[in-house]
């Protein structure tokens, strides 16, 4: 059985206690996107301010996080905000893909009879986000970890629209 230390790495607790990029941005020009974890009530709000340009080449000039939830969802959102700030949409999507791959490979391997496509995890892109790897041993919490990323995904679509 996985121990609590696998889940609650120090860096996670640190982001939970001192969340980065917490706050709001003026909308417009920024966009505001809400995400819910319907199973537990965690809420994440992502504010996005993109730079000029076209499509995936636009840069995430600023990002702010609101909402409330458990240590995993809040620290994940905080880490996410750091990892994508200043990146282009394309780069942010790359990181997102790697992060979700890290989460979902393990999610599926817990069950029998699953055939989901194996996605390569690009560890280089993850950096500090690697600390979240322990979450996959607690499958119920995966949704906590991915909530902010799903909200970001939706936010990007809205910002580009």
């Amino acid at each position, binding site marked *: 059985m996985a121990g609590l230390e696998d889940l609650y790495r120090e860096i996670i607790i640190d982001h939970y206690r001192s969340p980065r990029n917490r706050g709001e941005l003026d909308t417009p020009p920024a966009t505001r996107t809400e995400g819910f974890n*319907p199973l*537990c009530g965690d809420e994440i709000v992502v504010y996005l301010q993109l730079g000029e340009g076209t499509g995936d080449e636009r840069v995430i000039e600023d990002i702010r996080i609101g909402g409330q939830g458990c240590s995993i969802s809040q620290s994940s959102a905080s880490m996410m905000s750091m990892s994508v700030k200043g990146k282009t949409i394309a780069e942010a999507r790359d990181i997102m893909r790697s992060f979700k791959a890290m989460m979902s490979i393990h999610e599926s391997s817990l*069950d029998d*009879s*699953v*055939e989901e496509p194996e996605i390569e995890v690009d560890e280089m892109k993850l950096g500090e986000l690697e600390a979240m790897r322990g979450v996959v041993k*607690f499958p*119920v*919490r995966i949704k906590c970890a991915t909530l902010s990323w799903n909200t970001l995904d939706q936010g990007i679509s809205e910002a580009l629209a």
Partner: protein
Amino acid sequence: MNTGTDTPGTLADPIDSTRIKADFPLLSTTRAGTGHDRLITYLDSAATAQKPQAVIDALTNYYETTNANVARGVYELAEASTNAMEAARRKVAKFINAPAANEVIFTKNATESLNLVARSWGGTNLGPGDAVVLTQLEHHANIVPWQILQAEKGFEIRWIPVDANGHLDLTDLDRFLDGAKVVGLSAMSNVLGTLTPMRRIADAAHAAGAVVTVDACQYVPHLPTDVVEMGADFVSFSAHKMCGPTGVGVMWGKAELLDAMPPFLGGGGMIENVTQEGFKPAELPHKFEAGTPPIAEAVGLGVAVDYLSALGMDAVREHEVRLTSYTLRTLADRFGDKLTIHGPSEPAERGGVFSLELADVHPHDLSQVLDEHGVCVRAGHHCAKPLMKVLGVGATARASVYIYNDESDVDALADSLEAAASFFSF
């Protein structure tokens, strides 16, 4: 899909029903004191199938080791319970070749599944001037939900007729489909055994702009099922007819349609957010699974799917084609014109469901006498009253076979039919 067979008789039956019977406690043990002091001849699988030990054990095991409410619990037991149910969902998805597991919705039975389609898709997309096309083969479960909705929305219902051999008469299909928005179609008749040309009808329906909702209650338990190949948009069936428990059914639907539909039942588990002002539905499959799902039942269905998959659905189909041939031959040989068997005469065109009429013995009286001989068949309208009217009867006696039946069961049926004929000739 292989709905036919490769020259039955030349190879051995791929299913050894004697061995299989031993897996089914109700069929392999006598029950003294209950009036059943002998083995019964169970020929009512079209109503509900018996359950193998593995399925019964799965329920016991679930309640003894894993029981907890799903999806909302952080603790390990709740996680195990959720995993067990989601594993069952993936098994079902694979069994019917669904493109994605979240397109598999657990309902309480096929009837709820069919109501869900009517209310949620139909309630949103139908209005006066529209048409819903059904067939005269349909079970009430694929009729009444549309009639309920019709009273509210005022569309027209059209009926594809059945010909004298129990097949759908598709002569006027194009005319029927003109202006149709929905086609509701049974994949196999629970009265006549007729296998319908689903793909042909589905393609024509789609060309006409209609969605196709298939009642596959009698199909999924008996034939290899591929929802994509069928061409269906929605496919409904019940666990209890395929060796699974009562209390759970399946509604498969194309994700793009399901995503666009409003939820059916409201409550816990199907929401993303609720305020006093309103709610936002959750993602698939949860959107359509309000409240505590039939958890143990879904797990049991998963094990039933394992059981059938281990036999192989091609083998199941071949076994039933053989047994159908044997049944049609035996009954014709022994009763000649005295016994009418409704429906297609070609085994490759039908399943192992036999609606019988014996001279002037009413089906009720017939099945009563059969029961006296330990032979269980169903008498009545089989929830297909419009079809009864087409057949010109009030009821039939229906015998139906499954994996655990063999020639000896058919012989017992024939013997008891003879006894009935002589009993009522006094």
